[in-house]
């Protein structure tokens, strides 16, 4: 490398290497803190505003130190006379949990057949799953809508369960394939030699090693199902409305609503924030479909 000829003091504004602290290290730590605070500011402001009264929420300059109240939350949960969010929240919970469960039931055996005891051409199968994820949702939306309309499945939460399963299955297969292939073959063979049958091997050998990965996969599937808007918006109405659809609909034609919007957004986001932080360490692996570890 010709670069080495140049003699430069290694003052390092950016050697990403975790090492002894250098003069500029502290300054960059401050920059990182500043960036973190800036990115988090909208969320912090949302949380603060959700505890303000509507009058205090709508001021310029913003009132940072206004009195705190739970009115926004009371309004959101329907004591103010609006529609109750509970049916929508319940629907979202049912759709997300049921589809995550279905994903696990389908993806676990598939991942097993793609890692521990791989079928021939297993990479081709893996890439077929991935390619379905790259098919945009809008590509199949209309036929699904027509199908649902003709079979009376419109406004039915179980249709969403099926669609969310198809949306998350490729991610889950990829993730679990990468987690299951971390189980050493030698251990499985040892168990076989000791006379263990398949169910025993799966529950006693494979499961303990793969469990953190399976948990992370479930959390990521849960997040994607909980967030989904387009299918829910098109395919549900009154009965099966999910929380994101409820959010888009409830701010119409009212005067001051900022505190209420903040309360609602925060409540609806809480499960995702919780699941996301719980899966934090495996988040990259899941989001990059197992390509990055």
């Amino acid at each position: 490398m010709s670069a080495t000829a140049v003699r430069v003091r290694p003052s390092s504004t950016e050697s990403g290497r975790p090492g002894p602290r250098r003069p500029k290290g502290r300054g960059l730590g401050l920059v990182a803190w500043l960036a973190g605070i800036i990115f988090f500011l909208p969320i912090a402001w949302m949380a603060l505003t959700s505890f303000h009264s509507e009058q205090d929420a709508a001021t310029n300059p913003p009132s940072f130190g206004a009195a705190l109240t739970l009115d926004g939350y009371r309004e959101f949960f329907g004591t103010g006379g609006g529609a109750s969010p509970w049916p929508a929240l319940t629907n979202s919970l049912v759709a997300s949990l049921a589809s995550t469960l279905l994903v696990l039931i389908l993806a676990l055996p598939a991942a097993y057949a793609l890692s521990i005891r791989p079928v021939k051409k297993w990479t081709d199968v893996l890439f077929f799953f991935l390619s379905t994820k790259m098919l945009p949702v809008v590509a199949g939306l209309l036929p699904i809508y027509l199908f649902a309309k003709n079979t009376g499945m419109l406004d039915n939460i179980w249709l969403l369960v099926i669609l969310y399963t198809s949306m998350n299955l490729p991610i889950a297969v990829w993730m679990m394939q990468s987690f299951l292939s971390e189980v050493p073959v030698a251990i499985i063979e040892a168990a076989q030699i000791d006379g263990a049958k398949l169910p025993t091997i799966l529950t006693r050998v494979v499961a303990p090693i793969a469990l953190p990965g399976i948990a992370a996969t479930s959390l990521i599937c849960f997040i994607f199902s909980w967030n989904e808007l387009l299918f829910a918006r098109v395919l549900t109405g009154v009965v099966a409305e999910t929380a994101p659809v409820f959010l888009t609909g409830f701010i119409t034609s009212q005067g001051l609503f900022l505190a209420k919007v903040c309360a609602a957004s925060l409540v609806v986001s809480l499960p995702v924030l919780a699941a996301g932080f719980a899966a934090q360490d495996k988040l990259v692996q899941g989001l990059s479909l197992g390509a990055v570890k």
Partner: protein
Amino acid sequence: MTATTTAPVAAPPVHTVKRPSGRMRAWATRAPLLPALIFMIAVTQLPFVATLVISFFDWNSLYPDARSFTGFGNYTEVLSDAALRKSVWTTILLTVAVVVASLVLGLGLALLLDRKFRGRGLVRTLLIAPFLVVPVAAALLWKHVLYNPEYGLLNGLLHYVGGPEPDWISNTPLLAVEMSLVWQWTPFMMLILLAGLQSRDHQQIEAAEVDGASAWQVFRYLTLPHLRRYLELGALLGSIYIVQNFDAVFTITSGGLGTANLPYTVYQSFYQAHENGLASAAGVLVVIGSIIIATFALRVVSSLFREEASRA
């Protein structure tokens, strides 16, 4: 346990049951795969085939009897329709702007987070948070709480410094949508690039530093080439998600003010205008666009995948 590692892999399995024939065994290994495979084909491939078929029909669901075959009629109509052509352009603009901006920001943040400093874990958590706000909620937050021209936070903060207080959504609608998406997607890019940074060969970097390479030289000649694949992966996965974005466009501008992208246009043309044929043709065009991106994406994923496999 270690003793078993030396056992030959091809050792006959110690099954006492009658050995099934080769073909049966092949199906037994395939069996666990089939439910997932059949499910995916039924739920994702069949509807797309239906979309393809419908796209060749002139079909407005308000006039179901007037359905007729038009060949490529819908496609010529979609491609010659100024509004639809604009939405193609909007989709490209939106995707490229958001992906590039969040990649650059994500790279900066990943470099900052790749060093030791007090509270690094907490800063990482703060930075991930935007990605974990429900997209609709994030869009509502930006639209009403941040962008509101009278009492939104952005103009509130500008008020302190005496800057101009624009009406963000009306003046720069596409930029408004893009900013909210960049806020959500930067953490995603940061996470991927941080994983890339942490998989660098630290001995190599130390050796370069001992040889007197400057920080910039280390970054330019060692870090950046190593990160290339991770940058590609982030860009491609980001593109796949953002090309499909519906939530932000739907919530912030309702597709108005020239922000309607293709997913929103498809949604609108069958959900509101009931033009099934046109919507399907537009949908097929989205798919063709996605396939082009996806081909590259698959190539990058598969090369990373092979690299991981060879390392293991």
